[in-house]
Structures are given as structure tokens and as C-alpha cells.
């Protein structure tokens, strides 16, 4: 019998908690260090926070994509940042680190291991991100047109305006709040105290989106340690237990989607058991300001939920990492006692195509 208290879980599930989180300084261009050199201090920090080493984790899972690095098998060379000899159980997803965390959570559920390392890295600076992102689109009808992510997001924002669901002033209000919250986030890349009115005076980047509604281009990386059961309490006074986690995807055909809503987020939230939880903090991965409105609605978050206290992806948007960072920031709110219940969200693909929802609870 464990001396510790755990949150109520789906029958048969193990309590698995986020016990440590570290991230790189989010910068516009990391021109000095390579990916391994960026990851090494972050991995060292995420272990040092809880006094363990790589020998104490039974699994390592990472998230990244070679398209950002511009070279093959970059995820294999990145393992040099951890040191995987003697051989380690290890895996990789060509996705944001939030999905790597999902894989680690599944493996921890099997019960063979008690702790896992999750890390991810992504730079926006080596290539032209607008071109790289368009290569992820369907290769027949979309990719040959090279639509950049901001233009696709602008179509989404415009359809919200056309449907009477939002105004440009709403986008400015979200950006103003997020960047003001980011002033308290030492890892934020873009933080300021500006009124929505002053933001609305900016020129359009792609109408109806102005510069403030866009995410920054960010180089960065992040890491998390997950631990199960009593092991979580050995490493952390108040683990951020995952009471539910789920991810869903919508069609790749953008024209076939209703871009003003996010049914995949809604379904993932339902499957993650969000409806039964009291949520104090939500860390949403909304790279474009208007997407926060879509996500808030899809998750059914009430007005008293603290939205993206870190500033969210508008404060820093390292590719393949901004989703995992949301889980790290939400966990931090639980460790500090600021929140008892939190939800973290990660997205991938154009216009919120794929979404992961992770519900966290402190006991």
C-alpha cells in the first residue's frame, strides 16, 4: 500500500506525473551552438532538478524533424546529448515533443519502468520556415502552391470574422494579454506591455492578421521527466499527475474543414476527461492569436481559467517544442500550488489540424 495520495484515474491506469521540466533560452537565431550543444545543458538541467541521471530512466523519447535541421537522421545524432551507452530503450516521433511525451506515457502505463525522459528540439532559423512548413501539406493539391502558415492562419482568422465569431480587436486583446503575461516568463522571447489599441495600429502581415497576432520565429528545445506512482513522489513534492491525455487529427484537406472550430481538440478534451475536472490554468498551444479563441471554445474553458500565464506560443514558438513546453508550464503551475488542476494543449499541422490535450492534477 502506497503512503501517497494519487488522483482518481481511469480504472487500471497508473498515476504518472510530470516531475521536472527545462527549456532552452528561446531565441530568434541560435547561431553559435548546434542542436546537440543546445540540448546538452537542457537535459542536464532536467535531470539535475530531480537529482537523477540517465541511468535512472527506463525510456527516452524525443520529438523533432529533419526538415528543420536540413539533414538526415538528426534525431539520432541528437541522442549524443544524452549519451546512450550502454544501449538504452529509446524512440523518436517526427512531431512536437508533446507526442513524444504521449508515447512515454503509454510505455509507463505498461508498468515495466518507473521513469522516462522526453525531449525535443527545433530551430526556425536554419531554413525558410514559411517554405519548410508548406512541405508538410498534401503533396498533390496544396504543397505545389507553397502556401505559408501565416496565410493559411489568416484564412482561418478571416473565416472566424465572416462567421461573426471574432473581430480583429479580439486578436489584439489576446496578443496584448499574452505578451504582458510573458513579462513574467524569463524564457519568453517576445514580451511587452502594449494596449490592444496600439497593436491594432500595426500594418497587416496577411489580412486580417497583424504582426502581434503572429508567433515569433524561435530556436529552442525542451525536456521533461515523467515518473510513475511512488517514484514520482520521490522526485517531486507535488507531481503534476496526468489524469488524461489524448490526441486527435482532422483531414489534411483544409477546404474540407470548418476552420472556425476544432472538433479534434474537442474530442481529445472529452477523451482526456477534461469535463470532470476543475481547471485553474490552461496552457494552450495557439501559435496565432485567433486560435486561442477556437481552443478555448473547443475545450469549454470558463472565464475564470488563467489562460497561458507563460504567454504561450505568442511569447516563444520553438518548433517541435512549444507543445511540450505547454505541458511543462502547466506542470509548473501545479508544482507551485498556483493550480490544482491544469490543462495543456499541443498542436501540429496547418490551422490546428492535429491536437493533443493533457489534463494535469496536483494532490
Amino acid at each position, binding site marked *: 500500500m502506497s503512503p501517497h495520495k494519487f488522483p482518481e484515474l481511469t480504472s487500471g491506469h497508473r498515476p504518472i506525473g510530470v516531475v521536472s521540466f527545462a527549456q532552452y533560452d528561446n531565441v530568434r537565431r541560435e547561431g553559435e551552438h548546434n542542436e546537440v550543444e543546445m540540448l546538452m545543458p537542457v537535459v542536464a538541467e532536467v535531470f539535475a532538478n530531480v537529482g537523477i541521471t540517465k541511468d535512472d530512466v527506463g525510456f527516452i523519447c524525443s520529438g523533432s524533424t529533419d526538415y528543420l535541421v536540413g539533414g538526415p537522421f538528426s534525431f539520432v545524432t541528437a541522442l549524443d546529448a*544524452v*549519451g546512450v551507452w550502454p544501449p538504452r530503450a529509446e524512440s523518436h516521433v517526427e512531431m512536437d515533443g508533446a507526442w513524444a511525451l504521449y508515447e512515454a506515457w503509454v510505455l509507463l502505463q505498461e508498468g515495466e519502468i518507473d521513469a522516462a525522459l522526453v525531449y525535443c528540439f527545433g530551430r526556425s532559423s536554419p531554413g*525558410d520556415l514559411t*517554405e*519548410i512548413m508548406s512541405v508538410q501539406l498534401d503533396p498533390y493539391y496544396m504543397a505545389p502552391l507553397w502556401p505559408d502558415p501565416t496565410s493559411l492562419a489568416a484564412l482561418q482568422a478571416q473565416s472566424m470574422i465572416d462567421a461573426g465569431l471574432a473581430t480583429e480587436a479580439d486578436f489584439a486583446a489576446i496578443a496584448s494579454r499574452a505578451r504582458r503575461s510573458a513579462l513574467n516568463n524569463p524564457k519568453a522571447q517576445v514580451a511587452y506591455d502594449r494596449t490592444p489599441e496600439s497593436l491594432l495600429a500595426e500594418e497587416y502581415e496577411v489580412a486580417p492578421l497583424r504582426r502581434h497576432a503572429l508567433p515569433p520565429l524561435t530556436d529552442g528545445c525542451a525536456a521533461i521527466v515523467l515518473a510513475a506512482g511512488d517514484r514520482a513522489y520521490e522526485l517531486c513534492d507535488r507531481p503534476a499527475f496526468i489524469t488524461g491525455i489524448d490526441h486527435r487529427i482532422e483531414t489534411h484537406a483544409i477546404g474540407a474543414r470548418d476552420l472556425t472550430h476544432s472538433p479534434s481538440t474537442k474530442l481529445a478534451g472529452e477523451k482526456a476527461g477534461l469535463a470532470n475536472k476543475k481547471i485553474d490554468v490552461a496552457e494552450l498551444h495557439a501559435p496565432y492569436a485567433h486560435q486561442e479563441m477556437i481552443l478555448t471554445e473547443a475545450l469549454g474553458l470558463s472565464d475564470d481559467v488563467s489562460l497561458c500565464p507563460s504567454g504561450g506560443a505568442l511569447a516563444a514558438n520553438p518548433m517541435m517544442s512549444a507543445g511540450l513546453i505547454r505541458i511543462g508550464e502547466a506542470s509548473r503551475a501545479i508544482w507551485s500550488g498556483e493550480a490544482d488542476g491544469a490543462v495543456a494543449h499541443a498542436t501540429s499541422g496547418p490551422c490546428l489540424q492535429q491536437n493533443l490535450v493533457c489534463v494535469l492534477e496536483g494532490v
Partner: protein
Amino acid sequence: MSEPVTMMAAPTRLDYVFTPGVAQSKNLHGLEQGKFIGQRCPKCRKVYTLSRGSCPTDGVPTDEIVELPNTGTVTTYCIVNVPFAGQSIEIPYICAQILLDGSNLSFMGLIQEIPTDEIRMGMRVEAVWVEPEELGPTMASVRYFRPNGEPDAAFETYKEYL
């Protein structure tokens, strides 16, 4: 009725600015001066040539710089007989894994100035560099390796690097 479309071309080209990082920059500047630079792991003391800055065994920064000699040992090799697009060397030629003296990591190099049927494991070789004015921060600064005339290295000296 028109013929069904069974094929389409969608040319894709992406350009990148490569960041070698602190460690690899030291290697590349070494090549620019006609020198091989290695880096030693503070924990296991192994020396890595062309390192990306970490020990792949221990996951710690390899901060100690070690200047390596021009000589090494062929650990294994293959003779290339197959022509392919963009081939710049006349076939047949020898592609070998070379372990520099004092290093614990081999890398791939071209072997020249020897008939292909005389290549063997353990052969001692030395680097032939381009002319000083042609040296640059690139492996192209090494034209090739050639036998240096020393007796073959004993198998025990390189058996860990195969």
C-alpha cells in the same frame, strides 16, 4: 475520355544555413590550418574526431581540445566499382574507415596512390592535404590518404573500432 493522370512533378528545393556549433567550428578551423582537431571526453577520456561537441557515451561536453597527428590506421574499407551520377573520382577507388592515431573514433576517407588490390585492414596511412592556399574549413582540405610505409598495425590496436 481523357487519359487518367498517373504522375505529376512537384519540384521541391529547400535551402539551409548550417550552424556547425562550437565544437565542430574548432574542427573546421583546424582543417583550415591543415590539422586534425580532436576533443576529449572528461569522463571516459576518449578522443573524438569531427565531434559535434558531446561524448556520445556520457552525454557531456567534450571541452578538451587535442591536436591529432596526420597519420592513422585503416580499420576497414571497400573498393568502389559501381559508377553513379555525380561521381568525381575515377573507379575503381578505395573508400576506407580511418582511425587517426590518438583518436577513438574513425571516419571515412579516400585512399589513393596504391593499387586497389593492395588495400588491407591495418594499413598505416597519412593524410595528403590540398595546397596551403586552397585550405578551407572543410573536409575537402584533405585530398586523400595514402600509405605511409610503416608496417601494418596489429589487429588488437583497432579491433574496438570496427
